């Protein structure tokens, strides 16, 4: 394939690695990993987790980076190169899922920003009076969170977070690289500071013991294995075309095996440390973790920070640091999520970046605003409270939990069964210090699709028992919203993918 003039290139390899690691390290790494490990047998979780990392995580990362490096194009064009329009359709479908995730992820970041403002004072008051709900008062930080999301200020924050993302993206990959060179070291510094504080808290070290002491009884349960394989997929941002888009800005002779290993290990090291930082604090203050990014970010961890000894100033400082950490991690991830469709549209329509950005911004801000809607549909706060939070929960279930896995599965099938993974392996091995063995072909062709298919089918079977969200205590909304969200993701995603696939062609480019 030939280069279009709009495409940029990373200034350095380290810059690319930092940007890719910044993309992989998101809110989930900081708040979710430790709680997920705890949920699935604590120390016992690490065995399936490490197996999942090397059996699924690293090979799919090599596949995505290799594909980007081989074609020097974003996901749809890369999959078109593998299997024509059929492949391209699945590329666009992955990006459609990714864009839905981007929309709610930015709404989530707007709430993080709202909490950051609260961390300067009101968040640490004992309770919050609620006017929009039938509950009069609620203990903080939960009360502050629901008070904030039932107001209109998050809509303003949505515009602000989108503006920051677009400001980074508008200048191309060099700006993304520059920002990640600042954000990533800061994130490591903050997490190290939180570890030091956590371990020095009364009985903080016992939290470390709690996180690693295994409950081997849990390993008999298939759920722990499902949890570990899903965790690896989600934590490395695989299946969304983000890594393919980033790798497409690398020179063709980039060492994709080393890059994949460094990015994957850096991401896992970060969440390993974040787990320690969080658990030392939770044990010290006897707070039960919960395997939910939202609960951990907005309720559980801030509750721990509120208990920090040393007075209100210390509490404020750690609270501000925690929410700044979440914002940095979130923005470095959201930038990559926005960049993936932009690079795909540049490839397809051969238009400059600046012409695509207003369109992405318009659709994106509108979508994110829907997830920040303050309309109260659950006044008793028995489930999700507002319409925005309910939409976020439902879309997350489909676009994230299913979208990523479907994306990864189609990539493996298209590469392993149609294109031939040996061809990609040969290309990657040309430029790598570590040669990919034949087992890579077996993993991509048989093992990974089998694992992903098993997780997808077993999860889908659950939907037949209870359709996700249909049992929420949100009145008449419960009959409409769950089905609507599924239709938006599956139907809307398929329709947009079909239109984009049929519009224009890459044929000339591929021939050249």
């Amino acid at each position, binding site marked *: 394939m030939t280069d279009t003039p709009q495409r940029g290139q990373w200034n350095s390899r380290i810059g690319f690695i930092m940007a890719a690691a910044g993309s992989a390290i998101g809110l989930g790494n900081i708040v979710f990993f430790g*709680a997920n490990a*705890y*949920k*699935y*047998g*604590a*120390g016992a979780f*690490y065995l399936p987790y*490490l197996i999942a990392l090397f059996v699924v995580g690293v090979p799919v990362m090599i596949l995505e980076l290799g594909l980007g490096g081989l074609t020097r194009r974003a996901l749809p064009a890369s999959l078109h190169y593998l299997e024509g329009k059929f492949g391209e359709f699945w590329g666009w479908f992955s990006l459609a899922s990714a864009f839905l995730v981007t929309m709610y992820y930015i709404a989530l970041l707007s709430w993080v920003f709202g909490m950051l403002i609260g961390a300067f004072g009101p968040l640490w008051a004992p309770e919050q009076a609620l006017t929009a709900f039938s509950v009069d008062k609620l203990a903080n930080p939960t009360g502050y969170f629901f008070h904030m999301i039932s107001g209109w200020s998050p809509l303003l924050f949505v515009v602000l977070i989108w503006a920051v993302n677009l400001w980074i993206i508008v200048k191309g990959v060099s700006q993304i690289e520059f920002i990640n060179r600042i954000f990533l070291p800061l994130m490591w510094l903050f997490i190290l500071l939180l570890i030091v504080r956590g371990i020095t808290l*009364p*009985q903080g070290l*016992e939290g*470390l*013991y*709690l996180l*690693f*002491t*295994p*409950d081997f*009884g*849990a390993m008999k*349960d298939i*759920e*722990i294995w499902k949890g570990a394989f899903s965790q690896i997929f989600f934590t490395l941002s695989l299946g969304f075309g983000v890594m393919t888009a980033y790798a497409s800005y690398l020179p063709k*002779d980039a*060492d994709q095996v*080393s890059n994949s*290993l*460094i990015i994957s*290990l*850096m991401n*896992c*090291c970060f969440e*390993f440390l974040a787990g320690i930082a969080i658990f030392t604090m*939770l*044990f*010290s*203050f*006897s*707070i*039960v*973790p*919960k*395997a939910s990014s939202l609960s951990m970010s907005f309720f559980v961890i801030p509750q721990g920070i509120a208990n920090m000894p040393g007075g209100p100033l210390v509490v404020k400082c750690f609270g501000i640091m925690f929410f700044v950490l979440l914002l940095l991690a979130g923005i470095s991830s959201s930038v990559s999520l926005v960049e993936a469709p932009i690079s795909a549209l540049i490839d397809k329509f051969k238009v400059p970046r600046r012409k695509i950005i207003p369109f992405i911004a318009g659709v994106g801000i509108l979508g994110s605003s829907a997830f920040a809607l303050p309309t109260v549909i659950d006044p008793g706060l028995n489930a999700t409270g507002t319409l925005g939070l309910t939409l976020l929960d439902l879309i997350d279930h489909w676009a994230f939990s299913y979208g990523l896995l479907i994306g990864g599965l189609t990539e493996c099938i298209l590469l392993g069964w149609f294109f031939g993974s040996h061809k990609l392996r*040969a290309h990657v*091995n*040309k*430029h*790598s*210090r*570590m*040669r990919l063995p034949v087992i890579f072909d077996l993993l991509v062709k048989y093992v990974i699709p089998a694992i992903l298919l098993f997780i997808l089918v077993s999860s889908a079977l659950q939907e037949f028992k209870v359709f996700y969200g249909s049992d929420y205590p949100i009145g008449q909304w419960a009959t409409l919203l769950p089905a609507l969200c599924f239709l938006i993701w599956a139907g809307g995603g398929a329709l947009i993918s079909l239109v984009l696939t049929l519009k224009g062609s890459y044929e000339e480019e591929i021939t050249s």
Partner: protein
Amino acid sequence: MKKYLLVLLWQCLILFMGSIGVFATEEIPALGLSGEPYPLVNTPTQIMISHASYPDLKRFEVVVTYRANSSTSYQETLPAPNEDGYVAWTPKEAGIAILKATAPGIDAKDPVSIEKNVSVRFGTFPATGMLIFALASLILFGGLVLMIYNNTKPAITNED
């Protein structure tokens, strides 16, 4: 004049007496530990129930949830408290346990429920846990350092 002053004093006294009722706080129902705040696993301790308005503390049932919010969570029901509200408890497992005391409501009212989280210490160094910690650290951090070190060497191009 003295009469007026006496009346004023009397009014102030009444106001003061009334304000005592306003500022006095009702005792908050609570669960506590009679020993140290972080009990040790397999070491007996005592749970203390205090509830000023509930007449019979013996009617409380105390349930301990170990590993709450995990796939291996389980519960233990403790024996009934004595009349002073004390229950003996020997934590079965280290970690964060949830203590919940529930009693039937008075005069057909809702049941009374009090909850408290307690961090139970491991006490000894958990060898298996630390082995997992060391191995996971070695694989993740060792692998990362090794990869970075390898990539600082001059590149070799493999031609197939």
